[in-house]
């Protein structure tokens, strides 16, 4: 990229980050508050669970919940992983929807895409900057609360390696970037933020269904975002990471191509 091209891209990136900073800040604040709250709640929850007729009731629970509860009460690491990953996953997906669904659709709705596309920027630079800004904001929203959780754990006398927390967020992050690209493509093709968000939620639910069926979990796209191998077993899930990276590349090419041929 030429010097002028790089300056243009930085300007576009700045504009996109500026545009989407409030949803990102909102989700980051909620996650930081949760990160602060998770360690002090551990003794309270384990104490409560041990006081009830637990063993009998545990056997009656569905296998997913049973596994989760066993992991939760087994160790602080299991408890922290279970609660933290779930929060990151849910709020992260909400952030992806908040950033991705209006990524192009809002510009189409307000007519600002004409303003932008009439400037000496390529369509590739526009969509590239949009996706890059989204990826940067999502990374920030994951990293800051991750660090907060680590500090909070230290403050409450629990030790979880910061590297484990951050590394555990990598598959989750890549999954969010993949979902962001899918949201951007829907936003571009549907041209309506709410409809794009609705379609993405529908697709996510469909893709998540295999994860609830024993033996079919590997067919759920979300199983590739799981941080459990890193947190619980110390294994880096290379195949999942490579699969996610490949998906990101494919969706990026599709988004780029669709945006380049689009009329404004």
């Amino acid at each position, binding site marked *: 990229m030429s010097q002028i091209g790089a300056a243009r891209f930085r300007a576009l990136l700045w504009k996109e980050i500026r545009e989407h900073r409030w949803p990102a800040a909102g989700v980051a604040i909620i996650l930081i508050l949760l990160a602060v709250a998770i360690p002090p709640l551990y003794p309270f929850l384990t104490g409560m669970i041990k006081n009830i007729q637990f063993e009998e009731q545990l056997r009656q629970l569905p296998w997913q919940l049973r596994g989760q509860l066993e992991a939760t009460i087994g160790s602080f690491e299991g408890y922290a992983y279970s609660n933290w990953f779930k929060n990151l996953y849910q709020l992260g997906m909400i952030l992806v929807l908040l950033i991705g669904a209006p990524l192009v659709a809002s510009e189409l709705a307000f007519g600002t895409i004409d303003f932008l596309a009439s400037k*000496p920027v390529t369509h590739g630079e526009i969509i590239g900057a949009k996706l890059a800004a989204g990826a940067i904001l999502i990374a920030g929203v994951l990293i800051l609360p991750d660090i907060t959780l680590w500090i909070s754990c230290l403050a409450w006398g629990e030790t979880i390696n910061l590297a484990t927390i951050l590394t555990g967020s990598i598959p989750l992050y890549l999954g969010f970037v993949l979902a962001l690209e899918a949201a951007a493509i829907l936003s571009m093709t549907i041209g309506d933020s709410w409809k794009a968000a609705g379609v993405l939620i529908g697709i996510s639910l469909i893709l998540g269904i295999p994860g609830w069926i024993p033996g079919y979990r590997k067919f759920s796209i979300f199983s590739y975002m799981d941080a459990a191998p890193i947190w619980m077993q110390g294994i880096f899930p290379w195949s999942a990471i490579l699969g996610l990276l490949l998906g990101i590349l494919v969706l990026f090419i599709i988004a780029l191509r669709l945006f380049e041929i689009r009329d404004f």
Partner: protein
Amino acid sequence: MMAQVRVNRDINSRAGAHPDRVFQGHSPAQDIAIETRNLGRMFGDVQAVVDLNLSVPAGSIFGLIGPNGAGKTTTIKMLLGLIQPTAGGASVLGRDILTDSLWIRSRVGYVMETQAMYGYLTVGETLSFCRRLYPRWNDELVRGYCKSFGLPLERKVGKLSKGMKTQLALILALGPDPDLLILDEPTSGLDPVRRHEFLTTVIGEIAGTGKTVFLSSHQLSEVERVCDHIGIINRGTLILSGSLDQIKAQEKKVRIITQGALPEEIMRMPQVRKVEPEGAGYLISISGAVDAVIDRLRALPHSFLETIDMNLEEIFMDYVGAPDSCKTPREGE
């Protein structure tokens, strides 16, 4: 009914035209800022622009006029590479719109009709953002206009009035020191004072610099005031194009009261576009070599004959306004 009725034959008079410029009409040897070649665009089954052959001389102020939905904005968007043509091609400042649209956009200032900008950015941030997108930017000029317009740099664009937004859009278009300024219905929705102010600024900035202005509008009075060349577009088709002087010289009406019916040979003359019965006589619309027709009419036994100059609005209405009018595509030069 007619705003101007002249019996003289001063076909070079330019009532209403900008006085600072002397326009002779361009020859093919002159530089061309915009040239389209059978340019066309379809949206589904609808032909928005059809075989458009337009030539905008460099240094001119060209007004593309037409009713709403005539294809003006589609043409402009194709010139800027915002939408792709489905037929033909075009060049802007000598560069092809399909292969060099990035270069073209770096040399063209564009004010769009809607003036959609990012409402969450302040005026200052918007200027700074756009400045970083262009390879060249005239900070001094931008500062000067912000000061003269009294634009508050710290105010959010979303809080600006329509007039202020138009002023900001003009500053953003002039900032990159463009060789070509494209204005798409720039004064739409502005009050007469703001409209006058806008056009005065454009003319003040452009006059004498050799830059080209391509103005799309359906405000015929403002086009006639500032433009030296015009094109009339209707239903995607260019129906008249050329220098305003020459068009006015070549578009006349003759009111005549003859003794007896108008001979068929007059009606068949290629310059005669339309013959309308009017009272005891006829109102004849003539295009092209008007003198030949007028000389022929003078030779007829008649009790009254007057040649009527037409202003732009009358020419426009004659071609576009009347549903039964005979419209013949023709070049004004």
